[in-house]
């Protein structure tokens, strides 16, 4: 009886300890959401999404061009990163056992650990230094360099999740290997690959450092890949380090917009991957 009581006490004790750890871990997240929402919400209006930034003291400015710029550069980056990243992932999953596969996997792992500011410097050296101009293209290349390694690895993981029994079933029907990959394995892994793409896009949309000295910034609308381009993250950075109170407010509001954007992408990814798991065979 005494032993049972002790056991119950131990059980309650550790439940409380681990529960408090969860609360403690959630605290920064909740306070972040609360702070960004409470400071950013007052400035949020429809015009904030469509207007150009205004000079200090002039009311009614927005970050329309930065939102468009973020989408534009993430789009450019996706155009470059999706074929390369997903293609590399397919290669790793299908032929990744040899020396080449191991080398590529190792490289992807190292690359995904490279600090994003370093990626920015590389894009600067590769493109900005040669074009002698900051540009959306340079920003897109920097973001693509960040997306490719994570895309390759997660695509590989999702393809490897497809049971080998399906590959064998297809091959045993006399379907060639490449067609098996394309028509049987890829559709089965599609939900996972879409998830991987959305997560990579969300990550790229939230990056600041690689854009600071590649795309720089722009106070006006721009869809020319050879021109400097605004982005939400750099806009937030510029507003936040300024000495002006009303720009600080705008930084909070822009942060809220960015948070919503990235959050939406992540939620979509999560929703898709949950569906995929439910549809998967045993």
């Amino acid at each position: 009886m005494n032993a049972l009581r002790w056991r119950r006490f131990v059980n309650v004790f550790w439940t409380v300890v681990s529960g408090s750890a969860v609360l403690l871990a959630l605290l920064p997240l909740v306070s972040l959401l609360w702070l960004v929402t409470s400071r950013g919400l007052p400035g949020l209006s429809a015009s904030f999404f469509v207007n150009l930034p205004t000079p200090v003291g002039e009311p009614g400015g927005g970050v329309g061009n930065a939102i468009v710029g973020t989408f534009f550069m993430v789009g450019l980056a996706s155009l470059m990163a999706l074929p390369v990243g997903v293609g590399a992932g397919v290669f790793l999953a299908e032929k990744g056992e040899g020396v080449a596969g191991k080398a590529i996997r190792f490289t992807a792992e190292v690359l995904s650990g490279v600090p994003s500011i370093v990626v920015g410097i590389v894009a600067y050296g590769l493109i900005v230094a040669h074009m002698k101009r900051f540009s959306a293209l340079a920003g897109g290349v920097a973001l693509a360099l960040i997306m490719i390694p994570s895309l390759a690895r997660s695509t590989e993981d999702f393809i490897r999740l497809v049971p080998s029994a399906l590959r064998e079933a297809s091959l045993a029907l006399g379907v060639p290997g490449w067609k098996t990959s394309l028509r049987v394995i890829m559709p089965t892994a599609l939900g996972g690959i879409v998830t991987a793409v959305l997560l990579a896009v969300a990550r790229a949309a939230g990056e600041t450092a690689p854009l600071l000295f590649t795309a720089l910034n722009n106070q006006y609308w721009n869809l020319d890949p050879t021109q400097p381009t605004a982005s939400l993250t750099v806009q937030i950075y510029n507003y936040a380090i300024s000495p002006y109170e009303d720009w600080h407010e705008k930084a909070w509001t822009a942060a809220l917009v960015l948070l919503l954007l990235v959050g939406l992408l992540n939620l979509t990814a999560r929703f898709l991957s949950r569906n995929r798991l439910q549809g998967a065979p045993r």
Partner: protein
Amino acid sequence: MNVHQEIAAVKSPPPLSPEVASESRRPRPAPGQEAPAIQPKLTVEHLNAWYGQNHALHDVNLVVPPRSVTAAIGPSGCGKSTFLRCLNRMHELIPGARAEGTLRIDGKDLLGRDVDPVTLRRRVGMVFQRPNPFPTMSIRDNVAAGLKLNRVPGDHAEIVERTLRQAALWDEVKDRLGASALSLSGGQQQRLCIARALAVQPEVLLMDEPASALDPIATAKIEDLIHELKERYTIVIVTHNMQQAGRVSDQTAFFYMGDLVEVGPTEKIFTNPSEKRTEDYVTGKFG
């Protein structure tokens, strides 16, 4: 070896469609290895298989008559599944695995370097241990998968119905052909996989313990099905279950430790085997 002279004399027989096959001359029931002058469907000579350094099959020699059922039995790890997977060259897909020897279908070599395994696999279908329908496809598309992916022209709907009937599944699924293949029970999924294998009109059907993941009722259905399929196809089945081998096969091959110990008419293997090891195994002394 009379058989091989016979084979040499036959000039590349056209692939038999199932309809033609069922009408042509049937072999005698339970043909033994000594059975005279029926052209064998499959001829295996000096077949050796390796997994890396592991020599998994030693010098296997076997003849499979057309439109018969050959069962491969033996304890786990004896090489019977490896043997089966050599017959449609699925064995070599495993990294480090290789096979050597002579393997002929209707007298034509299959293991040669210049033989495309893809065309071979269209002639030698396979059903696996666990049902493995394509999860992203409907019941209809699963059956037609081989036809669609290989761009075989023709009336797929008609083939789907016929093969589903052959697999004794048509009545259970005819009202929901568009439903996901995963909505079927395990036994139904396995019959779906059999229909899928039959749809590409193979001549030989390999079955790797097709009923081991199924309950007794589903197993009985699969066994009945094997009896019917024998009319049209040459079947090689691997099974753990000796009663099953006794029920469905004409010829039984006993594998042990990578050797083909004995092959003969099923009745003889189970009642009067020549080898001591075979007798010990079928009477349950080991295995």
